């Protein structure tokens, strides 16, 4: 009897041990539901072929990505081992202890130099300039523009444009030129409109759109180290940038008041607008004839410069972080070591992912691979981002509350909107003891 019991206990122990080792062979990465997540799944399938570790990329629609991730993190859940999280989450997730500190890993692999500098600064480091890293830049992304080459290159249009504005119709080099072109092509009676911009205020769509104008006008959102905002968020440059965005809104298709990446791609595929703002991550759909009947006549350009020659773009994209509550942290680190290898990053780019690896970005091969890769490469070295403090969501909602009525409804002035925003942000920073 005793022997039997010992045998059973031994069997049970063996079964348990083998089941935990089986569990360790599986990793789950959480991301939003979009094409790059599919490309990542293809990439990690190759990791499985090499190592036998099964990696699953689990996704959820963008609209609940933030809510779902933080609900899981707040509950200290171990459902996901890694998350490809938004750059502005860094503060909230690192201060609450949700992310594993990757500083040592970062320094060991010299990632500060391997990855493009802007991606390290915004996707990985928190607090700003602290030398502490919480993520590995995974999907580089920024806002760029697509446009209708056939409309731009039509000789009759070119002639009419030159007669009206006194210079040649071409890809805009400045926001002022972009405004002229938008006005020129804005013909509601023909069902054609000038431009498609982001206006969705439910998360960061509108703010990202406005950031493109603000940063290129030479403005900033605030001092990310001292939390000073007075005279920065409501600077002359920002007021001019907001006024420009409001003006561009006048050249958008009708009903353009809750639009984000889906609608902005539709503006091109449905012949609605001459130019359209969007993240580079959504451009593959525009070069594909199956999803864009105008694929052959769609061109791309980087965010134009402001009046003083500054040229920046709003950062999108995400870094990949290891979750503190994961039971497979060691296995996750091994995966990251594989992920940052040069040949893997190259393969990542080939599959359609936007690598942040400086070497791959700089290679001729990458830049010529698609019609927009060159614009992407140029943009990734001049990107800026929103606040990454833990209270970023409040700052985001306050910005939406202040600027949305001005942009889409013409309520008040740009100065009033930004002055009020400065007051809101000051109060928020005071509330969290960031400033005295």
């Amino acid at each position, binding site marked *: 009897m005793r022997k039997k019991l010992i045998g059973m206990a031994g069997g049970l122990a063996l079964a348990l041990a083998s089941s935990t080792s089986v569990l360790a062979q599986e990793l789950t990465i959480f991301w939003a539901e979009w094409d790059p997540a599919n490309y990542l799944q293809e990439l990690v399938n190759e990791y499985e072929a090499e190592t036998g570790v099964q990696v699953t990329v689990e996704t959820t629609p963008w609209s609940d990505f933030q809510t779902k991730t933080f609900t899981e993190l707040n509950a200290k859940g171990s459902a996901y081992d890694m998350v490809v999280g938004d750059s502005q989450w860094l503060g909230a997730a690192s201060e609450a202890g949700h992310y594993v500190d990757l500083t040592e890993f970062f320094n060991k692999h010299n990632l500060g130099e391997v990855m493009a500098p802007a991606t390290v600064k915004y996707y990985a480091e928190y607090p700003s300039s602290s030398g502490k890293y919480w993520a590995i830049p995974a999907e580089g992304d920024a806002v760029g523009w697509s446009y209708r080459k056939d409309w731009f290159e039509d000789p009759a249009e070119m002639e009419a444009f030159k007669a009206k504005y006194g210079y040649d119709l071409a890809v805009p080099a400045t926001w002022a030129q972009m405004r002229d072109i938008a006005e020129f092509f804005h013909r*509601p009676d023909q069902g054609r409109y000038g431009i498609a911009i982001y206006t969705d205020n*439910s998360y960061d769509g509108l703010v990202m759109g406005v950031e493109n104008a603000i940063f290129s006008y030479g403005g900033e959102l605030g001092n990310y180290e001292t939390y000073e905002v007075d005279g920065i968020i409501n600077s002359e440059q920002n007021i001019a940038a907001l006024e420009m965005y409001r003006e561009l809104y006048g050249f958008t298709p*009708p*009903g*353009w008041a*809750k639009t984000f990446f889906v609608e902005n791609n539709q503006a091109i595929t449905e012949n*609605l607008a001459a130019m359209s703002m969007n993240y580079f991550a959504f451009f593959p759909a525009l070069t594909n004839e199956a999803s864009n009947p105008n694929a052959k006549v769609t061109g791309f350009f980087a965010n134009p410069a402001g009046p003083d020659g500054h040229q920046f773009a709003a950062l999108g994209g995400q870094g990949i972080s290891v979750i503190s509550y994961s039971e497979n942290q060691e296995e996750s680190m091994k995966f990251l070591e594989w992920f940052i290898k040069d040949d893997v990053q190259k393969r990542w780019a080939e599959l359609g992912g936007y690598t942040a690896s400086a070497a791959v970005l700089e290679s001729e091969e990458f830049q010529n691979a698609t019609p927009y890769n060159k614009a992407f490469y140029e943009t990734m070295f001049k990107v800026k981002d929103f606040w990454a403090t833990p209270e970023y*969501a409040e700052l985001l*909602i306050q910005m939406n509350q202040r600027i949305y*009525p001005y942009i889409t409804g013409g309520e008040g002035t740009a100065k009033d909107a930004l002055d009020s925003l400065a007051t809101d942000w000051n109060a928020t920073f005071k509330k969290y003891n960031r400033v005295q």
Partner: protein
Amino acid sequence: MATAVLTTLDPQSRAASRGMSDLSIRNLFIIPTIVFLIVFNIFPLLYSLGYSFTDFRASSSAPANFVGLQNYRDLLADPFIWNNFTITAKYVIVSVVGQVIVGFGVALLLNRDIPFKGLLTTLLLLPMMLSMAVVGLFWKLLYDPSFGIINYALGLGTFEWLSNPNMALYAVALTDIWMWSPFVMLLSLAGLSAVPKHLYEAAAIDRAGSFYTFFRITLPLVAPILMIAIIFRTMEAFKTFDLAYILTSQPTTEVISIRLYKMAFQEWQTGMSCALAYIVLIMVLAITNIYVKYLNKVKER
């Protein structure tokens, strides 16, 4: 009464033969329900009341500090929150009044002998059987200024239903009226069919006009059941979230539950959002109480 119930357990039944008393059977049915109610309703309700006096954030590991009535003070002094309440009130009034007029009107039309009455009633009930999210998504398409069928049918050109800040709330309310008028219609129909026919006959003998008959016979007799429909719809409209959230993101349509959602699950201001939820709860309770008092008065008549 209780003993009458307790003594009805048949001594020959299987439950009795297993040694179960009537008391244990009662407990078997009631205790799980009470436990469920306490765990999922009462406990969170009290727990969140506690949180509403703290600066707790579910997204942070920092301990919650007691801040007294600070959250309530901040919320009630916030002009944006008051704006949200004003929008909600406007929405409730437009939407409920619209539903009562349309629903009661259709019920009056249906309350007579017409062919295919049953089929017609069933078809009219379809909108309220759909999911809110689905209704929101397809009304968004119907309202679309470029290809929406509403503008096409009404010849409105590119009229902007949802992106015009002054129109958006009415557009959302219109969708709500379309969806929930059938509910008011159904209850009104039940009320109308219960009005004794002899009252109408008596009115006809007295040569009462149709206006007089409606206000003196029909409406007073249907009023109690109509009030119940209004109570339900007011509570629902006050808490509305899905339709407004899906259809548009205009600040003029940011009803209080959307603000609450953003505060709780985007900003993770857990303590503050608990306080706001309590303010909303108290308001809904107060409004419902007024209605219930009025309903009792109507019934007494």
